[in-house]
């Protein structure tokens, strides 16, 4: 019986796919795994070291922390410094450096920053602290945005008037389209994210696929999932038959999760958004609708942003679109480490630079 767990870690199955990939692969190709969790999984299972030299895996902009713009990080820090504010956040935002500080450094100075595991935890903190403003930085893709929408709807229903979200949510399909322009034909195929796909379904990528006709496979996070997706994309490339293949059938449906998507659409509307490294992408972000503006931190508080400073030499931007790998950045492992990150790709555990730092074998290292 399939337990939907062990099979996807199975060594024999993995070896089977590796052998098949070696047989099929002829052309030198570059595949982008869009999702940060895939990046980490690829490193942790040593997938690069078992693939033939013909295949390069490059990491894309699918770590929510990494693509959050400097302005947005600075806005979170500014919000945390306001009187009477409790800033509740997912853990991996805490260390991200803004222009002058990070939430972690603010916390060490005595600012009330609390780590939560879900938006409903943040809402609970708001209920327990009626005399405080509880702010939640809404970061993440279609995966997390519906849960934040649900929290805002609950807050409205329960009349919790001290709960606010600063929405920095981003949408994956518009970013794929933007990548096609930026990468100038450098990407031969995509390994598409698992979690996001659970929400938007294979149909979520249909317009993108129909426009570019690039080989794609959606997949999960175990080694066998990833190898199967690599094989699917390599086969599509070799036979010249691109398709939108779903290698994550146990979780992803054609239509995705319509209930979650309708929650998201109820609370948020699309807006242009700034992506770190990519710049402005039309209709790729989510703003809180006017109807729920009482819960919009951007609306409620005055946010003071520091003067812009360039991090000289940080190649996060080029890395996020797959044009550079971390070892090609002059700061990597030298000035920029997980303890003193320059850019967010080093700070988030799902960031490309952090994954390279922790797992990548380099000559002389």
């Amino acid at each position, binding site marked *: 019986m399939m337990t939907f767990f062990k099979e996807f*870690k199975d*060594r024999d199955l*993995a*070896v089977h796919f*590796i052998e098949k990939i070696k047989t099929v692969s002829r052309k030198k190709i570059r595949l982008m795994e869009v999702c940060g*969790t895939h990046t*980490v999984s690829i*490193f*942790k*299972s*040593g*997938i*690069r*070291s*078992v693939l033939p030299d013909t295949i390069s895996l490059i990491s894309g902009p699918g770590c*929510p*922390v990494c693509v959050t713009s400097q302005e947005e990080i600075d806005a979170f820090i500014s919000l945390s410094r306001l009187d009477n504010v409790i800033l509740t956040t*997912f*853990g*991996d*935002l*805490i*260390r991200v450096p803004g222009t002058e500080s990070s939430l*972690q*450094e603010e*916390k*060490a*100075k005595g600012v009330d920053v609390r*780590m939560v*595991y879900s938006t409903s935890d943040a809402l609970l903190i708001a209920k327990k602290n009626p005399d405080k403003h509880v702010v939640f930085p809404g*970061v*993440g*893709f279609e*995966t*997390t945005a519906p849960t934040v929408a649900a929290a805002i709807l609950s807050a409205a229903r329960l009349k919790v008037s001290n709960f606010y979200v600063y929405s920095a949510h981003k949408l994956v399909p518009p970013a794929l389209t933007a990548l096609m322009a930026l990468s100038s034909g450098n990407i031969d195929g995509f390994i598409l994210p698992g*979690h996001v796909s659970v929400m938007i379904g294979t149909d979520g990528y249909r317009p993108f696929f129909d426009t570019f006709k690039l080989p794609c496979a959606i997949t999960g996070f175990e*080694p066998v999932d990833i*190898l199967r997706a690599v094989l699917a994309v390599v086969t599509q490339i070799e036979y010249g038959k691109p398709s939108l293949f779903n290698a994550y059938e146990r979780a992803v449906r054609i239509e995705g999760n319509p209930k979650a998507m309708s929650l998201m659409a109820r609370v948020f509307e699309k807006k242009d958004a700034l992506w770190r490294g990519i710049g402005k992408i039309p209709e790729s972000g989510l703003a809180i609708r006017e109807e729920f503006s009482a819960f919009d931190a951007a609306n409620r508080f005055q946010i003071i942003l520091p003067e812009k400073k360039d991090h000289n030499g940080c190649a996060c931007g080029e890395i996020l679109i797959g044009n550079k790998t971390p070892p090609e950045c002059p700061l990597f492992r030298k000035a920029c*480490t*997980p*303890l*003193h990150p320059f850019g967010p790709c080093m700070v*988030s*555990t*799902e960031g490309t630079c952090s994954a390279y*730092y*922790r*797992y*990548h*074998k380099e000559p002389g*290292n």
Partner: protein
Amino acid sequence: MKNDKILIDHGSGGKLSHDLVQQMILPVFDNSLLSRQDDGAVFQIGEDRFAFSTDTFVVTPLFFPGGNIGELAVNGTVNDLAMCGATPLFLSAGFIIEEGFSITDLEKVISAMKKAADVAGVAIVTGDTKVVPIGAADQLFINTSGIGRVPDHVNISGRHAMPGDKIIVSGTIGDHAAAILIKREGLPFETPILSDTASLNHLVKKMLDASDGIHVLRDPTRGGLGTTLNEIAIQSNTGILISEDRIPVKKSVSGICGLLGFDPMYLANEGKLVAVVRKDDAEQILQVMKNDSLGKDACIIGEVVSDYPGKVMMTTHIGGTRFVDMLTGEQLPRIC
């Protein structure tokens, strides 16, 4: 250090803690015993060799599935002494208590300490109590120091790993940290995970009696197995090669790690040890460990190699390879 303030990561047991000790503490207190950087200092007085160690306990919550801060405080120092190959003899106990702390809870903690000391066969022979105003401490902090005698034939140090040596871990990793995490964060997991807090001195004695080929002993507490192996590789200037498939992790711990994006290699343990042993003695030592309830899940996870000195390499489940780094900061739950 770039930071002008202490960050919570300075206490993670990972790289920042390592830097704090290396850059601020060791150069100032500099002496030959300290610079060995083992779990305790080993020195000679007259004919006898002794080990001396100290540890401070600030765990939240104080009570967790499988134990409380009291037994942790006793077992922690007992284990540090045991990792020097010493037979622990005497402990001190210092209490910093926040005003308003429950007397009943304090009784529970003290009684747990007594029980743990009895199991380990040590006596708590001196101590101190301080009470601080509300807010000046979080409920209760405990420091324990301990002294033990090192048998003549024993010579254990993090610097003694040699190419060819086998690496044994005494049981499943990450149990303690997972138990604490679930309790502290109120995570709704149905499978109970208990802290593994235990004193390892009796197990260590059996191992030392069975073989004189034990080169390194370490308890992978803060920073977890990954950090401990890196420390050994650095101290001994050797490489370490481990196999992902051989690392024992409970299914429930692996599950919670998958959910939060944590790596069990960096989760704290309070009743596990890592032994680096002479190749020819490895099976015999393993058998002795397996016959003890605290080592029943023991297994050989890898070996010491001469390649890539100071680094830890892992053969992955699917036959790939990758580095295992030290923990660089507290693991943070990811967004998605």
